[in-house]
Every structure is written in structure tokens, then in C-alpha cells.
């Protein structure tokens, strides 16, 4: 109890509270700005946290990311530009709700279920940290290979248009991920002797280029430029959520738990959690045909999932010092800078600091309600800015974001090239989201495959003879075969009647 008391004192220090409040506003702003991601918000915070004591430094990162992941929903719903990659899975859905005059329901769902999902994630983090991390620690390259393949498979399955085109987009993303020096071979690939390309295609500029820039291009090329595309004033934000909660509580529970588990898996974070949960929600829904036409069910589940993943990602990070996602990878670095080595010893040596982090999580999620509500309300004003003024400003943000990710104009060139490609692809009904997923998971897929093969000297048996790997493998292959099996099953059922 003494530890908890000390931790309370740590977190309720006015200085810490001020840091949390500022970091929250910062997170909301960065998350809501198209092209600036939660990971980037964290990266931009590192230099600022460098001169803070450990608890406020970690609390700043925690609250900033919780806010940013929610705020990513705002431009997703109002402009169809996800503010962060974690909102990409359902940006289209919530934009359609806005078009149907339900922006308040879509954004409110994002807010309320982000908070609930976030709290579930924290609860699991506090209660189950050691157990879950122990499990994930047994994953070897075989398991990671299947995990990556499972993520990629999901991305093709949720393609609303032609699956061949989804596949093409995924393959292009995977090919982009091949550019640069591979860690497995050390050989520069597709770099055309360009030094910057040796570092590979930078993710954040690619993301800005593919999600934000085409929006600006489309706007400039559109004929009617002064049409207000989005709603400025919203109806009740919180009231409709009770009804959603009653109807979709199963989705909330499933999304929160799924998000926490995916977050806890090293390498997979909030964005993958959102994709998987959206796909699951559609799979288990009683009305899957409503998906893609402005239906809140998927938003409830994946909105909860991506915020739960944040808490989940801290589980392996705190217990074993292995980051659960790109945000905690940075956070671990910050902890090292403070002289705190994440690991089992931290539970014994600095428990109040650990509980301080837990309280920061709870605090951030509670603060999300008033802050997020205010953000939604003011988003109306932000978007009341005439679009001829807003669009050039978004372009400026794209420039700064693409530059700041690695402090080089190469980021801007990457953004331009991929932006033009993404624009052409979307005009031709190719989805662009699988490109990003391919870019992120490509290295994980290739390295884990090659490393596994190196271990077994080319024997493929390793992918199925470990229990967890085998289970994941069977799951992936079943998913592949599912359209075929479904068709067969339908034929079997239909045939007796027709013949």
C-alpha cells in the first residue's frame, strides 16, 4: 500500500499533471493533423523529455500517444484522411457516417470506445503483465513469420474492391520494403547507388504521401472547390453511445482484448490491431453487408482495439525490455536514458515508478473524455476554415512531417513520388492501405523466413512442428482457404435443391 501511496504522490505532483496536460494537447493536435502520426509525436517528444525526471517523461509519452491514437479518428471521419495509421482501418467507414449526417455518432464512438478499450488495455497491463509477456517471449522467428503473414492476409481480405487489386497493392508495398540494405544479407537492393535509398523507404513520408497528398491533389483537380465537404457542427456526441454500447458490447470486449494481445506482441501495434479487429468485427457481425456504408459496429470494435493495443505494447516493454510497438521502442530508449533498465528487476527496484506509469495510463484515459470531447467540438471550427486555406496548410504539414521524420528533404521527395503513385492507384480502384502494411510487415516477413531457414538449413518443417507456430500456420492457411471452403459449402447446400 505504501508503494501505491508513493506512486500517487508521484503522479499527482502539479509539475507532472502540467506535463500530462500539455502532452495531451500536443498529442491531440499531432494526432488530428493528417500526416503526423502517434509514433512521430513520441519521437518529437523525446528531445523534450530528455531533461525531465523519469515519471513525467514516461507519463508525457503515455498521455500523448493515448490522445493521438484517438485524435487520428477526427480527420478520418471528417476528411477521410486518417490522422494516424491506427485510424486507417475504419477512416472510410466513419467518413461515410459523416456523409450520412452521423459525424457525432462516429466521432463519439471513436472517443468513448477508445477510452473503454484503453482502460481494458491498462487493466490487462497491470494484472497480466508478467503472464502475457512470458508467453510472447517464447516466440521465435517461426512464430513471427506466421504472425506477419496473418497480418498481411487480413489486409487483402478487408479490401472492399477487387481482391486482385488489393493483392497488387500489398505486393507493391512488400517490394518497396525490399529497397535498402537488408539486415539478413547486408546487400544493398534496388538502391540504384543512391545513398539515401540505402536506408530504405522511410515509413512516415510514405504514409503522408499515400494518405494526405492525394487528398490535396484531388481537391486541386476537383471542379467544385467551395463545396463544404464536412459537417461543422455536431449533434450530441456522448448520448448515442449508450445505445451503441448496449448493442455492440461484445465487439467492445473482443476488440479490447484482441487489441491488448496484438499490442503485447512485439512488432505489432495499434495499426495492425485496428485492421484485425475491423476484419473480425465484420466476420462476426449479424449485418456484415452494412460494413463500408457508414456502420458504427466496426468503429466500436477497432476503435477500442487500437487504444487497448497501447497498453498491451507496454507489457513486454516493461517486463522484459522488448518493445511491443514502435512507440514503446522509443519509450524504452527514454527509460534507458533515465538510467532505468526495463526488466523484471524494475518491479523490485522501482515499483513506485512502475505504478506511476500505470496511474499515468489511467489518468490519460480519463482525461481523454473531456479533452477528446473538446477536440471534437473544436474540430468543427478547425474544419470551418475554408478549404482553399486549409489545403495549402495541410500541404505545409506534409512537408514538415515528411522532413522531420529523418531530417532530410529525401523524405519530401519520397512523399511526392508515392503521393502521385497513390493518387493514380486510387483513381484506378487500387486500395492504398495494403501498401503501408506491406511496407511495415515486409522486413518482418522476410527476415523471419530467412532466419528460420538459416536455423533449419532449409527444412520447412520448423514452421509447423513448434506448437504455437503450427497453430498460427493452420490459422493462416484456413483463412486463405476460407473463400474456397465457403463456396464449396454453399455449393453443397445449394445443389440438392437445384438438382
Amino acid at each position, binding site marked *: 500500500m505504501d508503494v501505491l501511496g508513493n506512486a500517487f504522490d508521484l503522479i499527482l505532483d502539479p509539475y507532472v499533471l502540467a506535463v500530462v496536460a500539455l502532452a495531451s494537447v500536443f498529442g491531440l493536435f499531432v494526432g488530428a493533423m493528417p500526416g503526423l502520426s502517434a509514433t512521430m509525436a513520441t519521437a*518529437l517528444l523525446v*528531445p*523534450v523529455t530528455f531533461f525531465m525526471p523519469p515519471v513525467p517523461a514516461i507519463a508525457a509519452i503515455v498521455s500523448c500517444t493515448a490522445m493521438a491514437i484517438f485524435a487520428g479518428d477526427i480527420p478520418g471521419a471528417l476528411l477521410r484522411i486518417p490522422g494516424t495509421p491506427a485510424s486507417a482501418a475504419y477512416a472510410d467507414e466513419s467518413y461515410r457516417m459523416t456523409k450520412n449526417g452521423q459525424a457525432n455518432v462516429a466521432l463519439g464512438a471513436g472517443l468513448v470506445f477508445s477510452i473503454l478499450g484503453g482502460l481494458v488495455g491498462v487493466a490487462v497491463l497491470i494484472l497480466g503483465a508478467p503472464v502475457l509477456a512470458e508467453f510472447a517471449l517464447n516466440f521465435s522467428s517461426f512464430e513471427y513469420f506466421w504472425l506477419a503473414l496473418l497480418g498481411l492476409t487480413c489486409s487483402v481480405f478487408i479490401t472492399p474492391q477487387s481482391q*486482385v*487489386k488489393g*493483392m*497488387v497493392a500489398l*505486393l*507493391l508495398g*512488400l*517490394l518497396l520494403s*525490399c529497397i535498402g540494405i*537488408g539486415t*539478413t*544479407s547486408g*546487400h544493398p*537492393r*534496388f538502391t540504384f547507388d543512391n545513398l539515401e535509398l540505402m536506408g530504405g523507404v522511410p515509413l512516415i513520408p510514405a504514409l503522408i504521401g499515400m494518405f494526405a*497528398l492525394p487528398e*490535396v*491533389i484531388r481537391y*486541386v*483537380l*476537383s*471542379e467544385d*472547390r467551395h463545396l463544404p465537404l464536412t459537417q461543422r457542427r455536431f449533434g450530441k456526441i456522448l448520448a448515442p453511445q449508450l445505445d451503441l454500447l448496449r448493442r455492440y458490447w461484445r465487439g467492445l470486449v473482443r476488440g479490447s482484448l484482441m487489441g491488448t494481445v496484438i499490442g503485447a506482441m512485439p512488432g505489432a501495434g495499434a495499426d495492425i490491431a485496428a485492421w484485425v479487429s475491423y476484419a473480425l468485427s465484420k466476420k462476426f457481425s449479424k449485418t456484415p453487408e452494412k460494413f463500408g456504408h457508414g456502420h458504427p459496429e466496426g468503429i466500436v470494435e477497432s476503435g477500442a482495439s487500437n487504444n487497448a493495443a497501447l497498453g498491451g505494447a507496454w507489457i513486454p516493454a516493461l517486463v522484459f525490455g522488448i518493445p511491443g510497438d514502435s512507440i514503446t521502442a522509443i519509450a524504452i530508449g527514454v527509460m534507458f536514458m533515465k538510467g532505468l533498465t526495463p526488466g523484471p528487476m524494475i518491479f523490485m527496484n522501482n515499483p513506485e515508478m512502475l505504478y506511476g506509469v500505470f496511474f499515468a495510463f489511467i489518468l490519460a484515459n480519463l482525461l481523454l473524455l473531456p479533452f477528446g470531447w473538446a477536440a471534437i467540438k473544436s474540430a468543427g471550427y478547425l474544419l470551418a476554415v*475554408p*478549404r*482553399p*486555406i486549409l*489545403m*495549402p*496548410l495541410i*500541404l*505545409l504539414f506534409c*512537408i*514538415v512531417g515528411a*522532413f*522531420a521524420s529523418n*531530417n532530410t*528533404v529525401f523524405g*519530401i*521527395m519520397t*512523399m*511526392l513520388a508515392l503521393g*502521385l503513385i497513390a493518387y*493514380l492507384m486510387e*483513381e*484506378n480502384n*487500387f486500395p492504398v492501405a495494403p501498401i503501408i502494411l506491406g511496407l511495415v510487415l515486409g522486413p518482418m*516477413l*522476410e527476415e523471419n*523466413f*530467412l532466419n528460420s*531457414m*538459416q536455423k533449419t*538449413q*532449409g527444412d520447412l518443417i520448423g514452421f509447423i512442428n513448434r506448437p504455437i507456430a503450427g497453430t498460427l500456420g493452420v490459422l493462416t492457411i484456413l483463412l486463405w482457404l476460407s473463400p474456397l471452403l465457403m463456396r464449396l459449402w454453399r455449393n453443397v447446400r445449394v445443389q440438392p435443391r437445384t438438382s
Partner: protein
Amino acid sequence: MRFNDALSGFVLLALAVFVWATAAGFPKLTGAPYGAAFFPQVLAVLLGLAALVLIFRGIQAWRNGEAVIQAGAWVRNPARWLGLGLIIGALLLYSGISASLGFHVTVFLIAAVLMIYLGVRVWLALLVAVIAAITLWLFFARVLLVPLPGGVLTSILW
């Protein structure tokens, strides 16, 4: 601008062949069953197959009377081409001269020109561009320490 799927297919097929051929030149790893070329070549094969499907579908659609290229209305409007040119130009301009001209000046020019092109009144465009340049600079360069280039203003700012 919408192309017949067969056209996209041919471009993708060419890309697949290029990837395969380039990857063929990658060295083998000593003692490893699969080398640096393995993964790109698998992707190239899959991409090639997907491209063939697209070509097949495209030719069918073309037989059914789909146009090879369907352009949006903006293609015949020179003002739209100018707009596209301005966006691309803005990014190239920033990449090229922000280091010597400085972040604020470049960003001000880009924002002002684009807003005026989009029909914002000149005084308002200039005002917003100045405010945007200052705010972005203060926030990113001064608060977050992103090394945005100072350019011609470097010696005055520090």
C-alpha cells in the same frame, strides 16, 4: 484519370520482370539456403501473375466497349494542370532551395502562391501564409528542435 486494367497490367508486368532481373544479380549468402534475391523474386512472380489477371480482365472490358483511358473533366482545363504543377513544384522547390532560402521564406512562398491560386483574397493569403510560417517555425524548430533550415534568416534569428 482511369486506365483500362490491361494498361495497368502491362506496367505491373514490366515492373515484375524488372524486379526479377535485378534481383537475379544479388549475391548468394554463404551457407544459407535462400539469399537476398529469394524474397523479391517470389514477390515478382506473384506480381506477374496478378498482372496477367488484370490484363485478361482489361481486354475483356475493352471488348465490351470500355474506353482505354477515361480522363476526368479537369484534363481539358489548363488551370487544373497549373494547380497540379504548383503542388509538385512546391515540393520540388522546398527540396531544392529550402536549405539556402530558409524554411520560413520557402514555406511562406508556397502557402501564399497556392492560396492565391485557389482563390483566396491576396491580403488574406499573405496574412495566413505569414502566420503559418511563424507558427510552424516556432512550434517545430524552437519547441521541438526539428532542424528546419534557417537559410537567409539564420544570422538574424540567432
